[in-house]
C-alpha cells in the first residue's frame, strides 16, 4: 500500500471528485442498474465496454460512496501520467491501478499488478477490449488479459458492466459532450470454472453483449 496522502491533497481530491461527479450527472443523469449483483465490496472485477474516455467516470459515479475507494480502475500509465492534473486525478481521485502499456517490462507484469490490487481487498474496473472502441462494432474482441487474471485469481467474480449511450454523448473526435441520458447496467457474475482461454473470453463477452441487448 502507498502511504496516506497529505491532508490538503485529500481535500483537493474530494473537491475534484465532487466536481467530476456533478459534471457527469449534469451531462448524463447517469443511473446504475444492479441487475445481477449487489453493490458490495469483494473479490470482484467489473469489466465494461469502452467507447469513451468518460467510461469509468460513469461506473465510478454510480458506485455507492463507501465503495468508491475500494473499486480501482485499471488504466494505461502512458495516458494517466501524461500531465500533472491527470496524474493527480488518476492517483488520488480514482485511485487507479496504472498499467504500463507501452512496453519494456515483462508481459505478466500487468496481470500481477491487478492480482496484487485484488489481494489488497480492492475490486477492479477493466476494459477487456484493451482500447477505446471507435468503430461501428458493438463490442471489439476481448484481449487475453481478462483470462490471465482469472487464471491467477480463479475465485474472482467477473461482473459484466454495460455502459449505454456514452458513445453518443461524445462521439469520436468531438471535444464537447452533448447531454443525453446514460445508464450503467451490472450483470450476473462469471468465474473461470476451469474454462480454457477461448471459452472463458467467449462466455464473458457474450454476457456483456446480452446486457447491451437489454439496454437497447
Amino acid at each position, binding site marked *: 500500500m502507498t502511504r496516506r496522502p497529505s491532508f490538503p491533497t485529500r481535500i483537493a481530491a474530494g473537491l475534484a471528485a465532487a466536481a467530476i461527479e456533478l459534471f457527469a450527472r449534469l451531462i448524463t*443523469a447517469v*443511473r446504475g442498474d444492479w441487475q445481477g449483483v449487489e453493490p458490495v465490496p469483494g473479490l470482484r472485477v467489473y469489466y465494461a465496454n469502452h467507447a469513451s474516455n468518460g467510461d469509468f467516470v460513469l461506473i465510478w459515479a454510480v458506485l455507492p460512496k463507501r465503495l468508491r475507494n475500494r473499486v480501482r480502475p485499471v488504466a494505461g500509465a502512458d495516458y494517466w501520467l501524461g500531465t500533472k492534473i491527470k496524474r493527480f486525478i488518476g492517483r488520488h481521485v480514482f485511485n487507479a491501478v496504472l498499467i504500463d502499456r507501452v512496453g519494456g517490462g515483462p508481459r505478466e507484469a500487468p496481470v500481477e499488478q491487478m492480482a496484487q490490487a485484488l489481494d489488497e481487498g480492492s475490486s477492479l474496473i477493466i476494459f477487456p477490449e484493451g482500447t477505446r472502441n471507435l468503430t461501428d462494432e458493438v463490442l471489439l474482441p476481448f484481449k487475453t488479459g481478462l483470462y490471465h487474471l482469472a487464471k491467477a485469481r480463479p475465485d474472482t467474480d467477473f461482473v459484466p458492466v454495460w455502459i449505454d*449511450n456514452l458513445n*453518443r454523448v461524445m*462521439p*469520436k473526435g*468531438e471535444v*464537447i459532450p*452533448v*447531454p*443525453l*441520458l446514460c445508464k450503467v447496467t451490472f450483470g450476473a457474475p462469471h468465474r473461470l470454472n476451469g474454462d480454457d482461454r477461448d471459452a472463458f473470453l467467449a462466455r464473458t463477452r457474450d454476457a456483456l453483449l446480452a446486457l447491451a441487448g437489454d439496454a437497447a
Partner: protein
Amino acid sequence: MIPDLVILLSWIVGLLIVASVIGGILEKTYSADGQNEAIENLTARIRAWWGMVILIGIAFLAGRTGVVILFALCSFAALREFVTLTNVRRSDHWTLIIAFFVVIPFQYWLIWAGEYGIYSIYIPVYCFLLAPIISALRGETDNFLIRVAEVQWALMICVFCASHVPALITLEIVGFEGRGVLLIAFLIVVVQLSDVLQYVWGKLLGKHKIAPRLSPSKTVEGFVGGVASATLIGASLYWITPFTSLQAGMMALVIALMGFFGGLVMSAIKRDRGVKDWGHTIEGHGGFIDRLDSVVFSAPIFFHLTRYWWA
C-alpha cells in the same frame, strides 16, 4: 413579498401534509415491507412533490430571475431526455451542442429581458432555419428530414413552450403589477391538480378507456372528473389572478384540456419509441417530461389568451 403567494403556498404545503399522512397510513397498513407497488409509487411521488414544491417555492420567492433559472434548468433536463430518444447521430453533434448551450440560455435571457418580439420567433423562425443548415454542412443525408424535424420538435416542446411559463411574469397587466408570479402559480396548480385528479377519478370510477393505444391508464371518467374539478379549483383561485371567477374557470378549463391532450401527444411519442417513461430523474414520476408534458402544452395558450385580453 406577495401575501397571496404566501397564502397559496401554505395551502399547497397543507395539501402535501395531508397527502403525506394518507400515504404514510396506506403504507403502514397495506405495504409495510414495500410489497404493494402502487402504494410505493404513490409515496415516492408524494416525496418527489415535496421536492418540486420546495424548489418552485424558492424560485417564486426569488422572483423573475429565480423562475427564469428554474425553467431554464427544466428545459435543459427535458431536452436531454427528448434528444436521447431521437435518431440524431454523430453529424448532428454541433446542432445539439448549440441547442443545449446557446439556444436555451439565449431564449431564457430574452424571456428575462421581456423581449416578446424576439423570444416568440427566435426558435420557430431562426432556429428552424439555422439548425438544419448546421446539420447539412456536416454532409450526412441519411434520415435527414427526420433528424432535422426531431431537433426542431424537441426545441419547440422543451424550450420554446416551456419558456412560456416564466414569460407569464413579464406580462404587464393593469392593476396586477408585481403579481406576475401568481399567474405562473395559477397555471401550475391547475395543470398539476388536473393531472392528479384525473388519476384519482380514474382510479375511483374509471371504466371506459379513452385512448387505449396511447395511454391505457386514462379513462373517460377520469378525464371528465379531473377536468371538471380542475375547472372548479381554477374558478375558486380567481383571487390570485386578474380574472373574475367565471373567467378564471374558463382559463382553467382551457389549461386542463390542453394539459390532457399534451399528455396524450407525449404518450404517443413514448409508445412509438417503446419506453414507459421519458427518464428516471424524478423518483416515482419518471423523467422531467413526464411531469412537464401537460404544462408545456398549456403554457403558450394560457400566455397568449392572457396577453390578448388582459395585457
